[in-house]
């Protein structure tokens, strides 16, 4: 398990107020975890805080599942210990 994955799941669990143990990579943020339109914006804000820069709007659509978010964050932020919140 990557540290990035743990941090992404921690964010999702906190923002959607659900048990982290229930969350798996194949889950859709909307269909499986119940995020509505405002939850998605709040999650995006927290993912931006994690990666340290605004996520381009063309990338937002791809962040539909837990696994997709983990992969995206790992791609743009290979060194998890480097930048903190902006």
């Amino acid at each position, binding site marked *: 398990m990557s540290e990035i994955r743990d941090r992404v799941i921690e964010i999702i669990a906190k923002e*959607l*107020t659900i048990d982290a143990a229930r969350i798996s990579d194949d889950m859709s943020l909307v269909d499986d975890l119940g995020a509505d339109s*405002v939850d998605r*914006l*709040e999650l995006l*804000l927290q993912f931006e805080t994690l990666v340290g820069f605004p996520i381009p709007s063309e990338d937002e659509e791809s962040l539909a599942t837990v696994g997709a978010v983990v992969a995206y964050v790992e791609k743009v932020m290979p060194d998890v210990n480097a930048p903190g919140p*902006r």
Partner: protein
Amino acid sequence: MRPPGTGRVVITGIGAVTCLGASLTETWCGVRAGRSGIAPITSFDASKHDVRFGGECRDFDATQFFTPKQVKRLARGSTLVVCAAKQALDDAHLTLASIDTTRVGAVVGACMSGTEIVEEQLSQCSTRGVWAMSPFFVPQVMTNAPAAQLSMLFGIRGPAFVTASACASASSAMGVAVRLIRAGVCDLVLTGGGEAALTSSVLAGFCALRALSTRNATPAAACRPFDKTRDGFVLSEGSSILVFESVQHARQRDARIYAEVLGVAETAEAFHMTQPRPGGDGLAACMRLCLADGAVDIGRVDYVNAHGTATPLNDREETLALKQVFGSDAKRLAISSTKSMLGHPLGASAAIELALTALAVHQQVAPPTINYETPDPDCDLDYVPGQARPMAIDVALSNSMGFGGHDSTIALGRWPTP
């Protein structure tokens, strides 16, 4: 006078969350016993403020009523309103699923919703940048949020909105609710008010206006309405929601009735942002209109729940207003300020005070004014000092006044009419 049985409005359910307890029963028991709910502030660090006490709803735990996700999305004022509304519906034995909800309204008074969220988010933005603003910010702090939440959580589909007239906000809401029922638009309306503005910025603002009592050493004795040594009001928070219902609808379902809403009136003073019109002229005009609206002779009025903030000006002008309207009958009235125990929850105050007035009429007991010890020659009426008074109450008035010059009076009558 309206023909009997038409356009008459009665109160069939009441809920409350106050600094005396998270229910109507606890609040009423505290008021009857003359207990103060005022204490040092614990919800934020008030150590740098000139005033460090207030009326916090300490017994209220939002997580008992809402899911963690709901709590996260609601400003505290909305949670207080929803909780009081749930109590009111239970108290009225109402299940909205069984009635036409397009004929049910939710009209609530509030004037400073979501200030705790504004403070938190501005702090976040100032340290991290404006991009850090939460997308929940607007839905949480929008003024109409408490009414919108009532609609969403209870399935109310009739008129739902918030009225704002500062400390008369809830009274304005209840006045509108009465008119919606009289006009045949609604069968029942969840109405009242809620406010959770006991926050650092609002406290600092009222300190800057020098409107608050500064008795930091003795919080429970700080709010002294009509007492010569009064030095200002005490900021608090809370909510009360009442079920206002057409008398036909209430009779059809054999509802328990606390009191009849006989008359309502709202006026504006066209005078000053924070001071009442000299001589009590503004409030006097409002009380007269209310009595006329309910076709109530002054001889029927036995009890007045005063606005009674304990500021030097308010209590003197309200006393003058009562003397203008009631003349020699003013000496006969039992008048009390329940703010002496509950502090001043701004836009919620009129709702909590009307709830207590309804119970006063229903139980035939005038609540006391506590901390009244030193008579003021300018305030020379009967303020029910210290102890609740069992007495015959045919009609009771509840007065409210708001910054900006908003006056409002509601008259309640004993039910069944003697």
